[in-house]
């Protein structure tokens, strides 16, 4: 009797112990990749510093409703870190794990390889969020960019954007059979994604039709939602909805097509 009562709890502690062990190992491995860490956490803020050093970026722009370009670029560099993390850094890791039989080896243990996928998403998501905090802090301290005025709306939009970026990365891992292929797909998707996020021209300053198209893409919608929350409004349901739809759709595609071997 006590045995039957004890067994499920023993099982659940065993499960969480295993999940922690996977997360610990993957965190150590993540910290052993200085290249990825630089691109995710340092590069976006460095980009912000470069933009902020250009005098014209610090002048109020009537196209942006009186905002300065540097104000509009804080969300853009935050989205850059999401794209670098979810789309550039994570897919080669996951595809490589599959290609080299690491996920298969784990399938022969009581732990499912999905725990590695979850750990990778958590780590890349956390690194991107850390990078976002750094960008906000540097923007505030160095260039006097106001912190998000609607903090809750900003957090919601950011969380959805992280979800969409990680799901997009999982889709890239799912459709790429080799690590090389996932690098290539990630690189090909990088510039369109960054364009839609507004790296060349903030979405709100784009010509009308182009702007409307970009708002239907995940990072275009994210840029608008973050911009609205930064300005103190609750992000429009249209942008949040587009973002949520992409996150759900991409997660579904990844779950449908991802192969463990």
């Amino acid at each position, binding site marked *: 009797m006590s045995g039957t009562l004890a067994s499920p709890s023993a099982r659940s502690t065993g499960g969480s112990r295993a999940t922690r062990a996977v997360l610990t190992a993957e965190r150590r*491995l993540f910290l052993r990749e200085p290249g990825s860490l630089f691109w995710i956490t340092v590069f976006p803020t460095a980009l912000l510093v470069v933009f902020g050093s250009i005098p014209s970026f610090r002048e109020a722009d009537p196209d942006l409703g009186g905002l300065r370009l540097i104000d509009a670029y804080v969300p853009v560099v935050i989205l850059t870190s999401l794209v670098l993390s979810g789309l550039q850094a994570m897919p080669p890791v996951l595809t490589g794990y599959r290609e080299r039989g690491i996920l*298969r080896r784990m399938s*022969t243990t*009581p732990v499912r390889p999905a725990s590695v996928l979850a750990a990778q998403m958590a780590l890349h998501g956390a690194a991107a969020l850390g990078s976002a905090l750094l960008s906000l802090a540097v923007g505030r301290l160095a260039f006097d960019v106001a912190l998000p005025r609607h903090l809750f709306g900003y957090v919601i939009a950011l969380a959805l954007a992280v979800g969409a970026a990680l799901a997009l990365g999982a889709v890239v891992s799912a459709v790429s059979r080799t690590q090389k292929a996932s690098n290539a797909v990630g690189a090909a998707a990088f510039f369109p994604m960054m364009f839609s996020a507004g790296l060349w021209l903030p979405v709100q300053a784009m010509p009308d039709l182009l702007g409307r198209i970009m708002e239907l893409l995940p990072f275009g919608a994210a840029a608008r939602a973050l911009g609205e929350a930064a300005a103190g409004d609750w992000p429009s349901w249209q942008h949040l909805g587009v973002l949520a739809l992409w996150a759900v759709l991409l997660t579904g595609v990844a779950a449908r097509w991802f192969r463990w071997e």
Partner: protein
Amino acid sequence: MPGGGRRGDARGMAIIEVRDLRKVYGGRPVVDGVSFAVEEGEIFGFLGPNGAGKTTTVECVEGLRVPDSGSVRVAGLDPVADHREVTGLLGAQLQESELQAKLTVREALEMYSAFYDRPVDWRPLAERLGLGEKLGTRFAKLSGGQKQRLFIALALVGGPRVVVLDELTTGLDPRARRDTWQLIEDVRASGVTVLLVTHFMEEAQRLCDRIAVIDQGRIAALDTPSGLIGRSASNTVISFTPSRPLAVHELDGLPAAVSVATDEKDGRITVNGTDETVNAVITLLARNHITAHQLRVVDATLDDAFLDLTGASA
């Protein structure tokens, strides 16, 4: 395993039982009606040429593949439906799998031992496998032999009742291969059943209590190594260098001879047959006043038996 005691073997009950297993890929049967039982405590060999269906069969045992038909039981459990329970008592070493390149030996052992409810202490295990000095080394920096020893350690760290070792010694140098054989014997001595997949005859002959010879998705024979050699039509090999060149046709009609071959370089002749053939060869040579230099009569190896068993269908 209640109800599983079909065979009254002294060794014990079957820990792995496979019945009429079939697996088809692209319309081609890769495993075509395979049945066998591995008794607890034995080293059971799975021997066959590349592409014979060995790996697919053991992958069904490990729960990595779902059989098209037939049944697989590990300690009475279904590897697919009871995945968690089966993986807890079956340790696996896979052909061509790796670990994360920058993961150290210690980290790999720590992580894998956390996967199991009742793991063994990995420190003495690592010592026993000669990895004690390598705990801080990253996987990518290990030699082939060290990687294989780490995979054996990971297969054992959960305290399994049975381990499946697939092509464990492929790619190892002869020295590392012999060390690995000793390890496998140690593993069995510690009470763990071993299912060993190999295409090395010498390895199977040296280590296995019983061997299933698999060819084209079917079990061609299942016996002890000496039983397999004994049942082969040619269990004796006669070789000699004749004092004058001897044409192969002069040796035609030797009783029980299965094959006759002449080495083109030194004219050495090799005849596979039985004791009866030995006498006939000696009589033939004497009658023709031929001296046989370096005459050798040896028992056939598993190699010869294997070619004999798989030759018919090849």
